């Protein structure tokens, strides 16, 4: 196998045992990018010269025997993370040409851990969408079939990781933007608990749910990256002071006796192939000694996830209208005329629902239903260790599907919205393929700050299935 096909864990071992250098690894990734990105369009900005320089530096440190957690490992970073001296656009014309004077905390931490950044990946403009079709710089294609969408908003990172253009990647999720593209591209995507990873320097979408996280080829890779990213950041008042854990420590622990919840409400309107894969996943967990139980039988009632669409749409648009007010074209970026259609539409709805006379009917109502969703999850996790569901009601949809559907994203993300609204952690793992040979994702959700539990379940699932071993033919 070419070096770019390695997992993070394999790449790290290879570098430490001097089987290859970071420069060789980085060049293999760059070669793959050049061979495939005309087709995929995963990147907004490729930083080849920087990457080669970082790799040379990493090789020096490796030869000195330094052991940083991600030393010499190539990464791709979603283009809404500020990168000092490197254009950061959030895939919007508003930020075309904007060069941040500082690094996002996530980027600063990855750099301190020794990563080699290959470039900045495409996304829905300002992360508004679940397809990358709202990007002002073109649509990313799904590596499994380039006639299909990669999902989004972190679609560039998902496609890049799935196509072995990189060893690992970084995405961000507000409600689905890590898990859904990970599901549609057949990779692992971890959305941490809200507040576990700093939002400082991330182009904001909805400040009350934005959560940066790893997108990788294996569960263990995500655990290693979370080890680097997690923690309180003085620059982000909403980052949690709760102590972090060693997220890689308990991956291989037996899951015997673990109680996993399911709900028929998460299967309504879900495609047949996806339901089939989900039922197989249940059996896999049972085979491993876990109990899979319908939460209704435990007396836990939950709202139909469809209500989360309303809550999320109101809260997200409201926060967007407020957050995007900062783009005035005076201090940085272009003027407000440069906003694309989707951003304008979202700003308009948010402004409306927050305006005098409508605040109570929409915004306040959504915040109250949010309370119900939070409390239902709380009650659920008193009875079960984790909750599983399909990540998305469908596999990847054809190119063009989001056009003229103002709520495309909300519908595609209906099964991830409730846990996002509640700020809970969730992870997507590959769980099968549809009749069209498109990946199917399974999501595992847990209580706040229980990343260790869902990573353990995800790892044991991965170890006992083979879906993650398949690669797209490009």
């Amino acid at each position: 196998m070419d070096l770019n096909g390695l997992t993070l864990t394999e790449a790290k071992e290879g570098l430490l045992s001097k089987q290859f250098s970071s420069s060789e690894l980085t060049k293999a990734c760059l070669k793959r990018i050049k061979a495939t990105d005309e087709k995929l369009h995963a990147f907004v900005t490729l930083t080849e010269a920087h990457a080669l320089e970082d790799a040379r530096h990493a090789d020096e440190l490796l030869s000195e025997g330094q052991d940083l957690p991600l030393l010499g490992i190539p990464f791709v970073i979603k283009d809404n993370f500020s990168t000092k001296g490197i254009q950061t656009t959030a895939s919007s014309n508003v930020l075309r040409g904007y060069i941040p004077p500082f690094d996002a905390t996530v980027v600063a931490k990855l750099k301190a851990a020794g990563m080699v950044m290959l470039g900045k990946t495409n996304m829905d403009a300002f992360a508004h969408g679940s397809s990358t079709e709202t990007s002002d710089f073109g649509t990313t294609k799904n590596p499994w079939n380039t006639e299909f969408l990669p999902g989004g908003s972190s679609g560039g990172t998902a496609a890049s990781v799935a196509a072995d253009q990189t060893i690992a990647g970084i995405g961000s999720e507000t409600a689905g933007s890590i898990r859904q593209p990970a599901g549609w591209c057949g990779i692992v995507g971890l959305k941490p608990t809200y507040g576990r990873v700093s939002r400082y320097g991330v182009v904001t979408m909805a400040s009350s749910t934005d959560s940066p996280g790893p997108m990788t080829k294996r569960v263990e890779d995500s655990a290693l990256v979370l080890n680097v990213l997690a923690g309180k950041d003085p620059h982000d008042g909403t980052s949690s002071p709760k102590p972090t854990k060693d997220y890689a420590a308990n991956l291989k622990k037996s899951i015997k006796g673990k109680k996993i919840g399911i709900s028929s409400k998460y299967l309504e309107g879900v495609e047949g192939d996806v339901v089939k894969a989900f039922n197989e996943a249940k059996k896999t967990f049972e085979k491993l000694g876990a109990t899979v139980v319908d939460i209704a039988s435990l007396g836990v009632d939950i709202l139909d996830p469809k209500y989360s669409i309303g809550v999320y749409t109101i809260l997200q648009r409201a926060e967007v209208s407020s957050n995007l007010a900062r783009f005035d074209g005076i201090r940085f970026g272009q003027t407000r005329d440069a906003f694309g259609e989707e951003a304008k539409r979202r700003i308009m709805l948010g402004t409306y629902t927050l305006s005098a006379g409508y605040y109570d009917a929409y915004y306040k109502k959504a915040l109250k239903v949010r309370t119900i969703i939070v409390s239902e999850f709380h009650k659920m996790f008193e009875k079960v260790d984790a909750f599983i569901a399909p990540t998305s009601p469908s596999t990847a949809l054809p190119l063009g599907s989001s056009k003229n559907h103002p709520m495309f994203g909300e519908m595609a993300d209906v099964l991830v919205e409730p846990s996002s609204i509640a700020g809970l952690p969730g992870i997507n793992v590959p769980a099968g393929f549809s009749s069209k040979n498109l990946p199917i994702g399974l999501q595992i959700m847990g209580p706040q700050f229980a990343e260790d539990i869902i990573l353990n379940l995800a790892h044991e699932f991965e170890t006992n299935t083979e879906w993650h071993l398949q690669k797209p033919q490009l």
Partner: protein
Amino acid sequence: MKIDITHIAKLANLTLSKEEKERFSKQLDDTLTTIQQLNEVNTDNIEITSQVTGLENVLDDDIPQPSLQQKDALANAKSTKNGLFVVKAILEE
């Protein structure tokens, strides 16, 4: 429901074309109809949730630290003068 698109666009500081106004008017109406389904959920006596972290009034120690240099802070501005951002006048003489 009828949204006063021109008023909302003014509040949002957006300049919309006639076509955009027509299109958004229809789309926003549709979206509002979809989210009306929230009214099926009983929220009597339910408090609002604005944040899920449980953190309130997060304060920092007031210690001066190095921050952006003036030249870096101004580097992305289209128009600067004497080390300051140039903005439209908001007060007339």
